[in-house]
């Protein structure tokens, strides 16, 4: 009896001690696990991604004990910078989030074991639901580090209201947007018509070169270096250089949506996601505003080349966590976000494309179901690209791709901007326009080639 009592007492104490020491391994609605996320969908304006996260937190997240907290909404370059600052252990760097949206190029900055391999947590059947080319972008060897949640393509946005006025006066029609050469010629005509206004902005020159060189059956990047010596490079460079030197193609910093707000440009080539920022009115210098109509058109190509467009859009990455509950939660959230109805609801409010075969088919067979007229126009333009036999290209991944892309962008803009200043100076000095243009275009190409060498 006495021994039994002692045994009971020891067991009781052991139970109490062990209960105090045990760590949690399962998700628990009474003790929610918090996942921080940095993403690019919405930036400072109303964010469709934040709306989806709110819905997840209210429904599945609440039931399962997962709370997703948006810590940063910014552009992909900024996310790259801030992640790199942490990985380089720079003083004052942000702590890594649990989830972030970025392009595949970021993987080179992380170690082999720092990111969560989604393929371990998805069955083959689950993975087969995703569009294979979207999914392929996320694989690094056998590991699926980037899960596609929304993809975008590139196209053209036009301020139709102002363009119509220009068209009426000059006879230049919207057909000019079909080819790069006619588009740049229209830009120069607009510059003259508007007494010195830029007409068009290309958001991403790196993408412009990639798409158009691919369209000319040439490679833009060979062995991690830009193929600047080729004829194709010159062919792609020349029309935009001439327009930029003339002053009609904007080579300033920032996204086109910024200048769209003030009517400083009336057209841009950029991501489908740009539609979120293309407002329906223009504000002028005296604070008056004008309501405008927007035209969405397929991406332009060089005359005689195969129409090509970049398929872009980052994906969701999860930082591997020692707390297994966070890894589980990240997978649950990723699956929820790419379920057909959630994915369509998210992408059609953000100007992206869904990532599963079923959702993609459902969207394009029923574009009229998209509520917003501007967004319907966007999906029609994307569909047109699909139907007109556009070929799609992806951003090449190699060590140093991130820095190369940034440097290339800066190089093109600064070279052409300086050339434009020189052009203005020389024209004001009474030199012949055509001769100056020819000289400056050649010298701009030479200096770009020299810088890339």
């Amino acid at each position: 009896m006495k021994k039994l009592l002692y045994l009971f007492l020891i067991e009781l104490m052991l139970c109490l001690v062990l209960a105090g020491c045990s760590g949690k391994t399962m998700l628990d609605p009474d003790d929610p696990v918090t996942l921080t996320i940095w993403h690019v969908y919405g930036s400072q304006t109303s964010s469709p991604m934040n709306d989806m996260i709110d819905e997840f937190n209210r429904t599945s997240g609440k039931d399962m004990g997962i709370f997703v907290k948006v810590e940063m909404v910014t552009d992909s370059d900024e996310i790259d910078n801030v992640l790199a600052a942490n990985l380089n252990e720079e003083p004052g760097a942000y702590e890594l989030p649990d989830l972030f949206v970025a392009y595949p190029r970021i993987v080179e900055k992380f170690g082999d074991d720092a990111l969560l391999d989604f393929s371990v947590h998805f069955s083959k059947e689950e993975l087969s639901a995703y569009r294979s080319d979207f999914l392929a972008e996320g694989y690094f060897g056998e590991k699926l580090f980037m899960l596609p949640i929304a993809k975008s393509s590139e196209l053209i946005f036009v301020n139709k209201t102002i363009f119509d006025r220009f068209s009426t006066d000059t006879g230049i029609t919207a057909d000019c947007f079909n080819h790069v050469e006619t588009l740049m010629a229209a830009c120069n005509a607009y510059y003259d018509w508007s007494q010195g206004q830029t007409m068009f902005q290309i958001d991403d020159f790196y993408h412009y070169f990639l798409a158009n060189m691919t369209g000319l059956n040439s490679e833009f990047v060979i062995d991690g270096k830009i193929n600047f010596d080729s004829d194709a490079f010159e062919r792609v460079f020349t029309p935009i250089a001439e327009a930029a030197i003339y002053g009609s193609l904007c080579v300033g910093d920032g996204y086109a949506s910024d200048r769209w707000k003030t009517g400083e440009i009336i057209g841009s080539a950029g991501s489908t996601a740009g539609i979120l920022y293309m407002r329906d009115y223009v504000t002028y210098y005296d604070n008056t505003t004008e309501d405008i109509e927007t035209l969405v058109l397929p991406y332009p190509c060089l005359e005689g080349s195969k129409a090509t467009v970049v398929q872009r859009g980052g994906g969701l990455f999860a930082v591997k966590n020692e707390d297994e509950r966070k890894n589980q939660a990240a997978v649950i959230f990723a699956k929820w976000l790419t379920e057909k109805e959630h994915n369509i609801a998210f992408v059609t409010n953000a100007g992206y494309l869904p990532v599963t075969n079923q959702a993609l088919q459902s969207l394009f067979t029923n574009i009229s179901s998209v509520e917003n007229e501007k967004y319907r126009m966007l999906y029609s333009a994307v569909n047109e690209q699909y139907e007109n036999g556009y070929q799609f290209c992806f951003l090449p991944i190699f060590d140093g791709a991130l820095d190369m892309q940034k440097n290339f962008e800066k190089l093109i803009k600064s070279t052409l901007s300086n050339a434009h200043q020189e052009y203005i100076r020389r024209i004001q000095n009474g030199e012949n326009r055509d001769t100056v243009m020819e000289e400056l275009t050649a010298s701009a190409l030479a200096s770009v080639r020299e810088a890339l060498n």
Partner: protein
Amino acid sequence: MKRSLSLKEIYMLFPKQGISMRRRFFLFLITCLTAMIAIFLLLLSLFGVLNPADSKLEHSLTQQLDYSFDRINRNMEQLAAYAVEFSQEITKQINAINLPFTLFRNNPEVLTALQYSAYTTVLNHMRLADCSGAFFMLNTTVNDGLEDTYYSGIYLKYANIGSDMTFQNSVCMFRGNSQVARHNNINLFSTWEYETKKNTFPQMEEVLTQLESNPCKGYLLTAAYQLPDAWEHVRFLCTPIADDKGNIIGVCGFELSDPFFEAQYCVSDAEYPSMVCAMLEQDNGVYTGQIARNQSGYIPPLKGTISVKSNDNFFYFGDESISLIGKMKYINIGSSPHIVAVMLPESQYDACIRVGQYKALALFLIVTLLTILTSIELSQRYVKPLLKSMEKIKEKQFDHNAHIPEINDLFAFLAEQDRINETAFDAMRRENADMQTSNEFPK
């Protein structure tokens, strides 16, 4: 040769007298009493009457509230000091234009020139102060022929809606002249507008009509507003801008956005990781405000208006989706009243209380079991020998080594009595024998 004594030998040196019966009884009584008290406490904690977690939690909330209150108070005073300096700088720049303020109206050239010159002042003050944005807004416009009324000025914000505004964060223009933004190589905010429309920030506009024009006295902290067409909530610390005659011609100050507030007043190192700090305002019984981040990273998803109810030592905060429990304190920032609150979700408060209850239950259960076991042990070791000795008395087996002094004494006494009785009996027997002998042989 010296030899050290072992512990056993030392123990054997002590006389084996044993513990007295009085002490044994006292010890047994104490153990029984402790067991009864432990059972009583066990029952009290079982029914939730006794729970130390409750007072510990209250203490922790009070401590955190005092800390957050002091921090907010100090930061707001510092921010107000910067705002005063900011206001005086803007006044200087307006005066430098050397034109009556009334002539600024409908004069885009003058207002643009002012924005070019004031941009650096706004940016410097924004970098200097702990804030997420800085602005000045004048009671004038580039075009008063428009249907709505507008206020001219510059409003800069950190571009990234992140939690930490200070690291690698670029600046963008929320309100102001786009040419000034281009000139300074900054982008426009997604919902940029040239000027601020009337009634966008009503409390900020109240500064334009208030009586106190001295920036040192006329500052206030507004309630939190949702930025137009954005998902961010912000509040402003505003102070008036006065002309050289003391007339209020504008307002300037700093923006404190939700992400900034969350990071700035994050409750860290708290004993309860889900504890959050909030700054609330009350308007006709309706509470709104901003809630900071907590250690656990989980922020209660309070949306819109918050109801506040008082109950004994705590306040209950909540909306239709969640209920929180905590403490609050009133604070005046300039001329505006606010509330600083520290709270944690009621479910987690209940969980803390439950854990405290379980801990107390476990502790009292162990104490109860230990005292019962001790009672049993004492009964085995001390009461049982007593009973055995009683039996021996009945059987007249006097054991002089009972290790109980009283029993040993009793045995000694009874043995002595036996010996006396035996002697008396022998004497009587001898006397009796003598008497028989004298009867048989008379003298």
